[in-house]
């Protein structure tokens, strides 16, 4: 059913349609509306057979989900940013234990400095935890990916993180087609765990594994996650048939067929990029974009196939691995490894801490990549004046205090009114 609805509410309804049995809620901006939404559905009785547990921290949230999932219940939770880091230990643990928990990540920057706005630092911090990470471009896709996530998680006994840009999607009201219960039930069978805590069939789950078998355990986790590269398209196909629309897949291409410049990005920014691609195509530029849905597992073969013919690959990503550069760019670089005549790779860091990524800036970026390429990571719309002054000042005075504070002071001095 088509609705004009806030993204968080749409996701809440979709999650409820997946019949989760245990939901763990802890507030953190910007995912809060989602669990509030599901919680209300539990309270009203619209979502039956569901324990909604208000926990005392994100660490507990995922831990409760771990217990519930190990005991055979379909478990769900949501978090963001600091919350994900606070539960980091449990994030790895859930994956290690092979528990098919689904978690929404309302992507948000990580402090300090504290920042509640969108970027992908949080997802990147947990990219190696063993979870499948799927990035939604729209709220429609966010809805569909959640339904797909439960199917995928339970098929593989592996947790899935659905990454949704905080505010940009979670708080955006837009048109979303919410499937009905019968459609979801037909797509998503009841949870039938491979292993479960059961007094009838006792086992010890969570053993200590030493050097003699740890490598094998990790190999198997890696092997298992790669199965998702096959399953995600398969399930997306099923879902398209059932719901009458294409969602998911490991990635989607837009006007890449003859593109000399291919942009790669994840999440909601892909929409803006598509608009820019259309504009530039209209101007004659051979440009396309790849929207990467599955960041983990990383679709190396698929990316090689698509990117190989291009001359330039521009990676636009909302995170910075301090000291290295863009982690997505690094992964793309890895995908192109040893490729003969491989395209040039241009890494751009954009939208950190919620800075708007505008069409204008992107156009400039794509032109520059082709005409005047840079080395290393490019920070889109960087206030070079502010950083230049700070670098200069730090060179002069040691112990100059917090860089963030200093830049804020400078900005305030330079521009008394924040931009509208």
């Amino acid at each position, binding site marked *: 059913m088509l609705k004009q609805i806030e993204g968080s509410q749409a996701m809440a309804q979709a999650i409820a349609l997946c019949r989760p*049995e*245990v939901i*763990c809620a802890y507030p953190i901006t910007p995912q809060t509306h989602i669990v509030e939404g599901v919680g209300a559905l539990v309270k009203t009785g619209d979502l039956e*057979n*569901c*324990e909604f*547990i*208000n*926990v*005392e*921290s994100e*660490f*507990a949230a995922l*831990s*409760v*989900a*771990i*217990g*519930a*999932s*190990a*005991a*055979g*219940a379909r*478990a769900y939770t949501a978090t963001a940013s600091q919350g994900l880091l606070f539960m980091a*230990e*449990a994030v790895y*643990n859930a994956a290690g*234990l092979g528990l098919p928990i689904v978690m929404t990540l309302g992507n948000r920057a990580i402090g300090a400095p504290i920042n509640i706005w969108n970027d992908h630092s949080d997802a990147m911090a947990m990219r190696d935890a063993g979870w499948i990470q799927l990035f939604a471009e729209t709220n429609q896709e966010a809805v569909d990916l959640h339904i797909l996530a439960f199917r995928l998680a339970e098929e593989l006994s592996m947790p899935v993180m659905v990454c949704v840009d905080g505010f940009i999607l979670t708080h955006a009201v837009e048109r979303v087609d919410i499937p009905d219960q019968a459609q979801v039930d037909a797509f998503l069978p009841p949870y039938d765990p491979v292993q479960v*805590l*059961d*007094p009838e*069939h*006792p*086992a*010890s*789950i*969570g*053993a*200590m*594994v*030493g050097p*003699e*078998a740890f490598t094998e355990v990790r190999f198997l986790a890696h092997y298992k996650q790669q199965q998702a590269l096959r399953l995600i398209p398969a399930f997306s196909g099923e879902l398209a048939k059932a719901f009458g629309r294409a969602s998911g897949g490991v990635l989607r291409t837009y006007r890449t067929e003859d593109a000399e410049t291919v942009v790669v990005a994840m999440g909601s920014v892909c929409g803006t990029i598509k608009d820019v691609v259309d504009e530039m195509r209209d101007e004659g530029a051979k440009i396309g974009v790849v929207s990467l849905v599955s960041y983990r597992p990383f679709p190396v073969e698929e990316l090689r196939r698509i990117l190989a013919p291009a001359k330039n690959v521009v990676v636009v990503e909302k995170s910075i691995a301090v000291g290295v550069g863009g982690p997505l760019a690094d992964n793309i670089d890895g995908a192109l490894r040893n490729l003969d005549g491989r395209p040039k790779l241009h890494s751009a860091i954009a939208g950190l801490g919620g800075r708007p990524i505008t069409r204008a800036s992107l156009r400039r970026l794509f032109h520059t990549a082709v005409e005047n390429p840079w080395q290393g990571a490019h920070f889109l719309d960087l206030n070079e004046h502010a950083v230049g002054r700070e670098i200069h000042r730090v060179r002069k005075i040691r112990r100059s205090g917090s860089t963030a504070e200093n830049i804020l002071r400078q900005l305030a001095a330079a521009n008394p009114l924040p931009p509208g």
Partner: protein
Amino acid sequence: MTQAKTLQPEEARQKLKFYQKGTFTVGNRLVSEEERSVQASEDRSNALTSGHRACQGCGEALGARYAIDAAMRATDSDLIAVNATGCLEVFTTPYPETSWQLPWLHSLFGNAAAVATGVAAAMRVKKKKTRVIAQGGDGGTTDIGFQCLSGMFERNDDVLYICYDNEGYMNTGVQRSSATPPAARTATTPAVGPSPGNVFGTGKFLPKIAVAHNIPYVATATVADLHDLERKVVKAMSIHGARYIQINVPCPLGWGAASCDTIKLARLAVESGLYPIFEAEHGRVTQARKIRKQVPVREYLILQKRFAHLFRDGVDDPRVARLQAICDAHIAEYGLLGEDNEV
């Protein structure tokens, strides 16, 4: 015939009932199987079975089997255990062998209470009667697991949390925890300098904090009093909601004591008043186990190398008196002296 001093029938029956040799021992050949302790039974579940890698004389291994076997009997073996990281976890489940014989889950060091909440929630939503126990050492309970534990208490989740309190981080090599007693030497409170060992005036006695959550049941116990321990576990399993039992389990390695003294130390901890044994229901202390044969705390301390610095050069350190004062305070607070109404 005139009776001089003889037992009245009621009195005699009372005495016979408790058959002197069987009052405190694990079993008693003269009472029926049902009246004996779980541990006396040939059919006990041995939930924690042989072949585990605990040190010789491990109090925790003992306490865990006591508690879980009792819970197994109380639940007709319809039980799931969640374990925090720590000695108990490491010595029972190193790949490829486990010593547990019930469904058991280990997740992390600090989240056992929350994981157990999840298991309990799953059982509720699945409409199963299966009961849930979370267990961990004092580090996993009073320190790193404290937040999850408090949350579980506060929500009154249907979980019995058992803390095996050996007063330190033994798994990592005997470091101080918030359950380490004053003056005790640990790897992080070495017995050097002007104030050797752990400082006075710190630490926390978690059972009181548990009581402050107004949960249905809180109790302390030791491996030295099996009947008391089993009774408390059985009682806990008869209650739904959040429950907490803290069991004193001496650690021969960490305490620097002979492996054969494990139970004796637990006994002396109680009999000195250092470790008050009580139970509380809904925020109120309802019973305190009386001291049977009071001993000065010195007798307890002197058996342990972690307190050896208190007895150097044949002179008692003034800290011994301070520890005795702690015992005396416990005795006064919980009313540990006098006749015990319950045996």
